[in-house]
Each structure stands twice: as structure tokens, then as C-alpha cells.
């Protein structure tokens, strides 16, 4: 896939020096058709989820029992559920939560993964212990761990932050601390490769401090793999949240998320298929588009591709 993309990418001839790095990356990104399609879809979903409620002004939790189990109509473009709640409004509201969980959990995982990866790649003495810690986390079964954490800390967080924020923090935290390991491993590998190159030696011999070497020289060079991890992280966080909601855990039952909508709609698959179709499609499209974007970003940031 990647090779093919590189091969078909139009060769960039003698880039003018005035062109910024960002423009270069953007041009590379545009060359990846899947990535562009992913970006379009993702932006569309973002817009729909955040701007949509201002256009489709129906409260997601408004119950209207007389209009239950309706198929799509003008008033309810996605139909209604068995309590007469508008499905479009629910999918939009659910998307805000699911995306927020996905992005926040990803950021947390990314931070942890990069930290562990850079430290263990750069400092030899930390390498062993940190990588064993990574192995330990990789070996933990995620779902049972989540259940235990939810049970242990639910009440404390609920008391401190209220039910919705509390569970949001909990879920984001739990997903974050259980999904940084792959990022850490990839980053460590890249740091090891970059560290042995001459420009690092040059920086060291010029008396540059360690943290500046890491920030100025190492990090920019491993950015591409971090970005890829990031996109994959969003997808897996959304899916994990869906799994939790599907199991009836996670957010309260009247708090729509894509996973919860899917869970609630499953029984009604034969009666009103749109209840399952739309949230399911939204999850799939988000995950797919983010993956394609990740693919394109990796290609765009790949220094070898820029050499063309």
C-alpha cells in the first residue's frame, strides 16, 4: 500500500526553498487519495456532530411515546427508537461523546507512550525496566481490568465530578493507560535508530543539553510514527468505549454514545434497522477515515518520500 502510493506519487521537482515544510507535507498528504477521502469524511462527521444540533433542533433525550419505532421520515430523518426519541439527534449527541472520548484518550495514551518510548530509547539504563513495564501492561487483559477499575473508582469520581464527567474521566483515563504500549514500543525503536545518527553526536559534542536534544532533534524525527499511533489510537478508543457501552457499563444508560445506541438498538434490528445502521455506520466510518488519514500522514511525514 505504502510503496504503491510512493511510487504513484508525482515526483516533486526542485522544490523552491521558500516553500514551508507544512506545505510539503500537505502536498504529500494530498497525493494519498485514501487519506484525502478519510479527511473529508472525518471533517464531515466532526461538522455534523458539532454543528448538526444547531440545524436539527430536536433534543436527543426528548421522549415522545406516541411516535415510537418510526421509520425514517422528514421529521425524524433517522427514525425514532422505542421511546420515540429522535435517532438523528441521538447519533449526533452520541458522536460528540464518542469522539471526545476517542480524542482525549488518544492524547493521554500518546503522551504516556511517547514519554516511555523516548526515555527507554534514549537512556540505556531505563530501557530494561521501562520495556518490562510495557510488557506487563501488554499482558494485562484489558476488559476485566476495566471492569475492576470501573467498580473501584466509580463512586469516588462520581462524588467528586458528578456522574457524567466522572465516568468520562474514568473511561478516558482507563483507555489511555491501557493503550499506550504500542506507541511506546514503536517510538523506542525509532529513537534507537535516530540516536545513533551523526547529527545527534554532533549535537552532543556541541554541549547541547539532553532534554534539548530530545525535544529539538529526536522528537521531530520520530513524529511520523507518533502521528500514526495517534490516529490508530482514536479508532481503538472509540471501539473500546463502544465495547464498554455495549456491555452496559460506561456511561449512564440515558447518555447516548455510539456504542450505547448500537447496544440498545440490537434488539430492534428487525423492526427498525436504522437504529443499528446509523450508529454502526458512524463508528465504522470514523474508524476507517481516521485510519486512512493516519496512513496518509505517515507517508507525508516520511523523510524518504520527501527526497523525491
Amino acid at each position, binding site marked *: 500500500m505504502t510503496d504503491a502510493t510512493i511510487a504513484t506519487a508525482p515526483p516533486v521537482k526542485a522544490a523552491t526553498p521558500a516553500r514551508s515544510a507544512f506545505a510539503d507535507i500537505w502536498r504529500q498528504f494530498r497525493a494519498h487519495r485514501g487519506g484525502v477521502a478519510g479527511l473529508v469524511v472525518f471533517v464531515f462527521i466532526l461538522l455534523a456532530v458539532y454543528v448538526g444540533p444547531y440545524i436539527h433542533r430536536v433534543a436527543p433525550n426528548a421522549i415522545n*411515546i406516541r411516535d415510537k419505532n418510526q421509520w425514517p421520515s422528514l421529521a425524524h430523518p433517522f427514525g425514532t427508537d422505542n421511546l420515540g426519541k429522535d435517532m438523528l439527534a441521538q447519533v449526533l449527541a452520541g458522536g460528540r461523546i464518542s469522539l471526545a472520548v476517542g480524542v482525549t484518550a488518544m492524547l493521554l495514551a500518546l503522551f504516556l507512550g511517547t514519554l516511555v518510548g523516548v526515555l527507554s530509547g534514549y537512556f540505556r539504563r531505563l530501557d530494561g525496566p521501562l520495556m518490562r513495564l510495557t510488557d506487563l501492561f501488554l499482558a494485562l487483559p484489558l476488559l476485566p481490568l476495566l471492569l475492576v477499575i470501573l467498580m473501584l473508582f466509580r*463512586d*469516588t469520581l*462520581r*462524588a467528586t465530578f458528578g456522574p457524567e464527567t466522572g465516568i468520562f474521566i474514568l473511561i478516558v483515563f482507563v483507555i489511555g493507560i491501557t493503550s499506550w504500549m504500542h506507541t511506546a514500543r514503536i517510538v523506542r525503536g525509532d529513537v534507537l535508530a535516530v540516536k545513533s545518527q551523526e547529527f545527534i553526536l554532533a549535537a552532543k559534542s556541541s554541549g547541547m543539553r539532553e532534554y534539548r536534544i530530545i525535544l529539538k532533534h529526536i522528537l521531530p524525527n520520530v513524529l511520523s510514527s507518533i502521528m500514526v499511533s495517534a490516529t490508530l489510537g482514536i479508532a481503538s478508543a472509540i471501539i473500546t468505549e463502544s465495547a464498554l457501552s455495549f456491555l*452496559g457499563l460506561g456511561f*449512564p*444508560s*440515558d447518555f447516548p454514545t455510539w456504542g450505547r445506541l448500537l447496544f440498545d438498538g440490537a*434488539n430492534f434490528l428487525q423492526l427498525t434497522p436504522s437504529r443499528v445502521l446509523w450508529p454502526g455506520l458512524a463508528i465504522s466510518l470514523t474508524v476507517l477515515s481516521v485510519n486512512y488519514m493516519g496512513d496518509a500522514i505517515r507517508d507525508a511525514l516520511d523523510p524518504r518520500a520527501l527526497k523525491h
Partner: protein
Amino acid sequence: MKNLKLLLAGTVAALSFAGSAAHAERGTDGDLKILFWQAVSTMNPYLSGGTKEVYASSMVIEPLARYNEKGELVPMLVTEIPTVENGGVAKDLLSMTWKLKPDVKWSDGTPFTAEDVIFTWKYCIAPDGGCAQAAQYEGVKTVEAPDPHTVKITFDEPKPYPYSAFVGAQSPVIQKKQFENCVGAKAPGCTSANFGPVGTGPFVVKDFKPNDVITLNANTNYRDAAKPAFATVTLKGGGDAASAARAVLETGEYDYAWNMQVEPEVLATMLKAGKGVLVTAFGTQVERINLNHYNADPALGDKRSTKEAGPHPSLSDPAVRRALSLAIDRDIIDEAGYGEAGKPTCNIVPAPEAVASTKNDSWCLKQDLEAANKLLDDAGWAKGPDGIRAKNGVRLSYLYSTSTNSVRQATQELVKAMWAEIGVDAELRNASASVFFGGDPASPDTFQKFYADVEMYTNNFDGTDPEKYLAEWLCDKVPGPENGWQGQNIPRYCNPEYDKLVGELSKTADLDKRHELAKQLNDMLTEEGAHIPLIHRGSVSSHSVTLEGVRMNAWDSELWNVADWSRKK
């Protein structure tokens, strides 16, 4: 050669016999597949009050008499039902005598005698035993055996309705030989006995996987040589109501599934496949919202929902409890979640007719938001800027828990919306049914622990007499760590007057008077807001069209006549 001929002739004879009278032979109908979406955790109903355990064990261990589908008593291990007329019950109502059937054997081949019956009583009343069915033996002074086939029960006081001990699926007889060393605190430790009790019923446990699957074989020592028709039973647990309904109604993978709490429109779609049918019986099941009378603030840790936590900051106000009930439109809940299988109710004792009160129907059955709002205004609960009422810093915001089930979650949402109209907020929570009803004392999410402000589920009573059921709301039945969370008074309601009235009921002989008292007690619970009754639920189960003999019973175990079930030929 001669022998071979004889053998052949014998085989032919046997085959023709089998062909002509398939129903009249034990074990000819293969495997009966039953699906309980709440998995069974023990086969000893004395250690778990859960309906699923009671039903599952009813295939193995039997009471002396049980109720049929009409609510009438039928003798099981006895020759007849003792009454005052036939001399079985003493004129002074202080004792009764059961005559055991003479030739009943336990599944291990040993004879069933009065000693076993006496032992069962001792087992349940043993101190530290945590017997979940202790209410069945309330008021029993002694159980004696004048001879090996006669059981004489003496009561502390005249017992006008004596059919409680050893009657119904909740009070089966267990074998003395097997449980002799499992009395008192040792009871939960006897795993092999609790998982595979020796019984007199049509089946015996072959393999028991807790919270998963139970396989049973036909009992070779069952008293009716022609029964049961099925050779084995597979009782699978787990899943949810909708998938259980689908497995019977739509795919036909299972023969019988219990408790179809599924939206009516979903069931209607499944029924179109024609693989199974629904059976409904209105018994005494009531879906209710329990209001916690004790403080359930998580800050109290292990003390919450116990006496030490003190009264609930807002639910201890009768005006709040009344308003919460007034705000609910039961018709809408019924329509959305139950359809034909439910009717709105304000009683915790909704049946039989003679004890079903109508006193509170006038104010309680109809939603009255205006009255509810006024009640709260008058009581000083004023709406804050967020629309939620509060008084002295206490907000009317409740954690509302129940088991995970789509009908219950829909009901939760409806109730939340209704309560929002009177300025009461609710936070919804649900726990998997196997956890919520699991009774695990270590789990914080069980309905007995009630670590929530309000919680919703269904309960019922066996038989037709509500005395022991109404005794569940006695002050000393409040669950707590001291009784292993086994008490039945889940709302933690406590009213000395109520206790007194229950005492009076247990002393009253006259049937009309008893009904009157039962109604009074029921009304008291509704009026004082021990809980909010919502829906009188029919028990809905589904069975395959190929299964014959199912007589849906709301008064006893649904599997009460499993010995008579057979496969349609």
C-alpha cells in the same frame, strides 16, 4: 441360536411397545433444553432467594405439596392436603399433620421418611445458616414424626393459613443423609451437596457449573415409573431476555425460556417465525421502585444503606416519597415495555382478587404532576436555578439502579423524564442481571446491598396467601452485614405499627378478616411510600411448539410439572 431368537423376539416386542406408547415411558424424548438468562448459581434454594435458583432446584427437590396453575394446592410427597375438614389440621389451628406417601425414594435409592422433613426444618432454622427461606418456617414450634411416614407440625400460635412450611417451590425437602454435616455456618461450604442435592423430583443433577450450565438426568428412582418423558435436561444460563426469546421463538434452539422481559413489539416480530409460543400467567409479580429509607451516600463507604448510615436525607420525607409516586404515569410505562404482559398497579399484593386492594387506585394510578409539585412546594423543597428542587442543601437527585435489560432501561428513562417534571433529577445506572440478582456479598451492585437511592426490579410471592410476603417488610428483616445481606426488607422500611399489624395477621383465622388485614398492610406500604409499585406483571415464558404439557404457573415454580412435559410426536 435359541437365545438369539428369544432376544430378537424380545427386541421386536420392546420396539412395538415403545412405538405404541411413547408417552408412557421414561427417558424416551431425549434432551430438554431450557434457557434461563439469569444463570443459576446454586441448586439449594435455602441459600439463595433468587427465583432462578428456586425454579431450577424444583426439578430436583420437591416440597410436600405445591400449587398448580390455578393456585390450588396439590399433594406431591403426601397422600392428601391436610385440612380442618379431613382432620389434618387441628381444630385449634395449633398443629397440622402430613401423611407422607409410603414408597417415595430419594434419587440415591434410600427411602424418603419423616426424618428428612424434620431435618429440613432444622437446617433452615439453624443459627448462622443464613437460610434465605426462613420466612417459610416462621411460627413453627416443632416438627415431629409420630411414625416414619407422618409429619406433625406444631405452631407457636394458631396458624389460620398453615400451608407454608414444606409447601411450594421455596420450601422443598432436602435429604438428611446428604446435608447432615452442613448445618448452620457450615451450610455454604458444602459445595457438592449445594450443587447436586439428592432429591425426590423427576431429575437428578449430573453436572453443575455455577453460573453457567446444569445438566440433569432423569431420576431412575422417581415415583412414577413412566415419567419424566425426557432423558436429560440441559439448563443453560446467561445472556439476556431478548436473545433467550430469540433462541426459542425464532431459531428454535431451545425448548423453553423463562422470563421474557422484552419489548412487546420485539416479541411480536420473533413470534412470526412460528417456532415457539408465549405463555403468560398473572401471578403476584410486581415491578416496583424501592425507595431507600437509609442514607446511600457513597461517602459513607461500607456503612451506606445500613442502619448506621442513618435515615435518607430526602427520601425519609413522606412528601417526597408520595410526590415521586404521583409523578409517574404507569400507563405509559405499561404501553412501552409490557403490553399484554402487564397492567398498571399501586399494590405490592396485586393478586389474588380477594386480597387485591383498590383503596389507593384513585390517587395513585393516575399521574398528577400538579399535586406532586404542590406537595413538594408545601414541604419546602424549592426549585433551584438548575430546575432541581433542594432544601437545606439537600438536592432531590437520585441514583436509580436496576438490572441491565432493555425494558428496564426504557422504564428508567421514562421515569426520569417524569420526575424531571417535578424537579427531581435521576442518575441512571444498571448492573448485569447476574450481578444485580447474584447475591454475592462481596459485590457492591447487588439489589440487597442497595447502594443507590432508588432501585427497580420485580418480586412476587409463591402461593396465594400473602402473609409471609408481607412479613418481609418487618423491621428485623432489613438486610445488612450482620445477616449476610440476606434480609428481604430491601427498602429498609421500618414501622412498628406495621410490625404489629403483621403480628395480628398471623394470629387471625377468619379468612375475610385475613384478607382485610392483608389489604390494610398493602395499603400501608403504598401510602407510606415504602416503595412505588409500577406494573403488575404477568410471567411470560416461551416454549417451543414441539413441547407438550407446559402448564404455565404463576403460583409456584414454572417448572412445577416438568415431569409431565414431553416432545410432540
